[in-house]
């Protein structure tokens, strides 16, 4: 199994990276960009086949270690 976790800065929280990249994209000619947010993408290769259990444990891990709940949100997908 593979777990895919995306971690993104919370909406209300400043995302300096996103802002800077947005400006850079505009500068090199990409138009029509309203907003850029930059987060993390984590892929975890798991043993076993119990997807339910995996979802539960990975969600827990996301909350505890993979994300910083004070400033970030996360979402988990098991594949």
């Amino acid at each position: 199994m593979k777990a895919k976790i995306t971690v993104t800065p919370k909406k209300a929280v400043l995302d300096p990276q996103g802002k800077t990249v947005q400006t850079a994209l505009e500068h090199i000619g990409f138009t029509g960009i309203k907003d850029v947010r930059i987060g993390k993408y984590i892929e975890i290769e798991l043993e076993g086949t119990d997807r339910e259990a995996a979802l539960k444990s990975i969600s827990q891990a996301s909350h505890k270690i993979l994300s910083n709940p004070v400033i970030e949100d996360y979402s988990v997908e098991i594949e």
Partner: protein
Amino acid sequence: MTKDPAITPELVAQHGITPEEYENILKILGREPNYTELGIFSVMWSEHCSYKNTKPLLKQFPTRSKKILVGAGEENAGIIDIGDNLAIAFKMESHNHPSAVEPFQGAATGVGGIIRDIFTMGARPICAMNSLRFGNLSSPEVQRLFRGVVGGIAHYGNCFGIPTIAGEVCFDDSYEGNPLVNAFCLGVLRHEQIARGAAKGIGNPVFYVGPATGRDGLAGAAFASQDLTEASAEQQRGAVQVGDPFMEKLVMEACLELLAAKDAVAGIQDMGAAGLTCSTCETAARAGTGIEIELSKVPQRATGMTPYEIMLSESQERMLIIVNKGHEAEVQRIFDKWDLPWSEIGVVTDTGRMVVKNHGQVVANIPAAKIANDSPVYHRDSKEPAYMQGVRAYRVNSLSDTTSPAKDLEMLLQTPTIASKNWVYRQYDHMVRDGSVVCPGSDAAVVRIKGDSLPMLPDGAAESVPAGIEKFIALSVDGNGVYVYLDPYEGSKTVVAECARNLACSGATPLGSTDNLNFGNPHNPELFFQLKESVRGLAEACAAFNAPVTGGNVSLYNQNPMGAIDPTPTLALVGLIEKKEHITTQWFKDEGDVIILLGDAVDSADPNLGLGGSAYLMAKHDVKNGLPPRCDLKKEKAVQDLTLECIRSGWIKSAHDCSEGGLAVCLAESCFSKNVALNTPVFKGAKIDLSGVKSSRLDALLFGETQSRVVVSTSADHAEQVLAKAQASSVPATVIGKVTGCCKAATLDITTATASTLSWSIPALHSLWWNALAEIMD
């Protein structure tokens, strides 16, 4: 638009405003405040902004000297003349509560805030320091906080491009859940470049520069002025502030460029705690003017922000600039060059009032001077804490002397508070800007000021400092919460003395100081007693060392559910080294050099022989008790003056002060603290003979923390001169040994009257000391 809540007693209380304070607000306004105004009063009258509980105490600090160009309390930071038309601006500030909530960003934004305070003065920041406190490092949660805080400081300072050149870190249970993060910054400027935070010139436009305002750290100042409980951390309204050091670097460069544009800037102030609120009413109050701003012109990151939110937001990296009329285009040109947002948001008026409009509608109208200057002042009750009686009664002779001195030293060198902090400072860029002459790892850091350290001059202006100028500034920051807990007055004197001693060891004379008072809830008379007595001690000692206080910061309400932190005043001292040749480091230099102890080996008048509150007592016996070693300021000054005189005479090759861990730790560090590159320490051995020293206890002799002691080394032919000079200055001085061979076989040998000769392998001791933090953290 959402409707503002009605003003009820509950709402007033939620804003931390007492009924008496509310009466005062009614008087000042002549009416009821609206919601936005209530918010404004609450942040401006919080302890963080108003010093309402500490103002009377802070008056005791010495704040004047011939060299002080801008004194404490006048502006965002004090400024001191260092000769040749050069001046330095420096200050320290805490970010304790934000760091408890989010260690990385809390510490990062703390660094950002203090850097802004410095360039607001027109100075170019050239170095930073930090003073940190955490709980017991064996706890994973403490490790998380420690890692986060250090990472945050590194992130901000490194990216901004400022060398973080010194600091201190201590670990003690009392800081569990309430870490202390005090950040210091120093900048340089020419005398004529001092900028003021005053809204001068009726009719002048007011500019907002820097990133857009979001709902960041809403009411952070008020938050910093409450006890830190789990509930308050959870409840902190608004989003955690995220620092953007890249943005700050651009804002600084643009501001310095604008300040160099002739006559363009009338006043400038950073938006720190209480953001737009504080910067507008303080600048108006300083100039005796009024200010009117239109909130719809404030760049906003979030949609639907209310006036209350905009005024109280603590979004980072923003500045308020009052521009001389007719120079608006300069702002546009420079901020566009740096691709920075800017907006003209208001105007200076002659009404003396701070008027805030939103889409033309007045949402706040307050007399600026009254809110900025007429904050309430409280004389809190104070009572000696009950534990003090026990402390006074405690005698170390209730414990038996050590029978394992060899192991004790090994253990002490590994205790996190004493162990090498290389795990910390190697994460900080401490060399950027080509000025780091003595890097972290010696008693005080030394930074070089050179021509390009300075802010730019106006186009075509003649240089006002001599060509090829070089100046050397030494810095150190110190604090010892345990000493201050055990004896707030005497302990605080020691804090200053130790810091000054670090400077003396590096060859510097103090210029001035800045402090950060980290204490508990002032409403508790016992905690207020600690604060009061501590300030008295600090003030007395700062005067004794000619180190006037140019500014600082107060952080109260530092408690966790178990109680208050140890009272922790931290003090940063800045000094000048007259000549390059006087720069001195703490490590032994050459085989055959004579090692001399300046000061008493043991203070025999101290019933605890220097062991009260010592690192040894805590690490070995788990005892935090007993009156700490006393510091006689006269004696201390004599030792420091002697050290300096010997350095200036060219007799001294190394100087290291005895502090935590006492003489044995000091000697060990002198043997192994030089490090030339990754995995390349430089070792010296030392053969020490203390058999002539009378001490009733071996542990007191080796690990006691008797004050006013410095270990120096000198070439054999200068030893006599040092001893003669010491005698002439009535400072005890004893030859205690010789520097011996280097390399892998180096040993530290200590002979005492009571024990057989102790011998340690220097590489082995070094490895314990050098790797202790990494072993826990990596």
